[in-house]
């Protein structure tokens, strides 16, 4: 019952295809969020869709609740959650640092210090702080084991923001005295790494489903959305 290009499904078949698409969207989202490679997810979805077409069965009847199937497949497929977590953390840290680097001079302006050194220094300082915090949190708490990539409890964001603000407010002199050379070195390292990591993450979470089933062409990409 797989819909091929150029054919029009009957209302019943269209409903069946819709249910399959919704089911596979959820499955894709869960697996990609768990760090399973997007291409691998795409091949799996195509395989399961073909199975449902052969069996002429409803996805939940044949494959079970989507959460249970995802959990079962996640352990079988051997997701690389650890790598995904680190890459996600790095991207997050740099993005957060850039955002704070832009925000902090507005909160604590220093009219006597001006120019690009401030901005570069701020970014370097915040990058180091964010990376240190996240790596400590990840390794120290053992949180990467069994936790879905990008799934950081909201309370830790609040703690992070408050701690960052407090440290920044009490160490303004240190903040301003970050040397240009250190700052530039940090930027030269962290920004390209973050860009490469982001590209890798986007490629990894892109789900391409082989075959010509039109109802599976536009699956969601998981944590990065579309």
């Amino acid at each position, binding site marked *: 019952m*797989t819909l*091929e290009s150029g054919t029009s499904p009957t209302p019943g078949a269209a409903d069946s295809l819709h249910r399959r698409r919704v089911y596979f969207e959820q499955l894709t989202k869960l697996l990609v969020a768990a760090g399973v490679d997007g291409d691998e997810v795409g*091949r*799996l979805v*195509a*395989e*399961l*869709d*073909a*199975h*449902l*077409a*052969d*069996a002429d*069965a409803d996805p939940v009847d*044949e*494959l*079970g609740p989507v959460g*249970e*199937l995802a959990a*079962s*497949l996640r*352990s*079988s*497929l*051997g997701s690389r959650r650890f790598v995904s977590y680190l890459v996600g953390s790095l991207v997050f840290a740099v993005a957060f640092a850039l955002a704070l680097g832009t925000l902090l001079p507005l909160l604590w302006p220093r009219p006597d210090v001006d120019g690009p050194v401030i901005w570069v220094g701020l970014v370097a300082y915040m990058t180091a702080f964010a990376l240190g915090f996240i790596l400590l949190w990840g390794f120290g708490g053992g949180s990467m084991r069994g936790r879905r990539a990008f799934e950081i409890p909201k309370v830790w964001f609040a703690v992070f923001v408050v701690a960052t603000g407090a440290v920044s407010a009490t160490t303004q002199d240190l903040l301003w005295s970050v040397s240009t050379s250190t700052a530039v070195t940090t930027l030269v390292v962290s920004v390209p790494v973050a860009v490469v990591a982001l590209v890798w993450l986007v490629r990894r979470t892109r789900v391409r489903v*082989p*075959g010509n*089933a039109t109802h599976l062409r536009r699956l969601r990409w998981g944590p990065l959305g579309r």
Partner: protein
Amino acid sequence: VAADSDDLAARWLKGLMEACVLAVLRSGPAYGYEIARRFELIGLPKPKGGTLYPILARHERDQLVEATWVEGEGGPGRKYYVLTPAGQRHVEAIIHEWERFAPRVSGLLSPKDIEKESA
């Protein structure tokens, strides 16, 4: 409680499913639905996709089977599974163990023994 034979068979098969999937592939490469159908053809309950595919994924991860995606001509593509030499050895070892184990269970559960116990 009366036991439904299909339900009992499905429950017994649960513990043996991983081995049975490999055993089915001894007769040649097959895709997922075809593997399920082979169960049915020999009178066993057809495994649901939700049971079968995680097992196939595990076997593939453990290199007991190899999978090849074959594009369909006018239909959906198929992922064909074939036993690897390691998978072949694994299933032979399981069959060897099963041949030692099954007669003991049969001996225990046979009607003759049950009658003897209740007498």
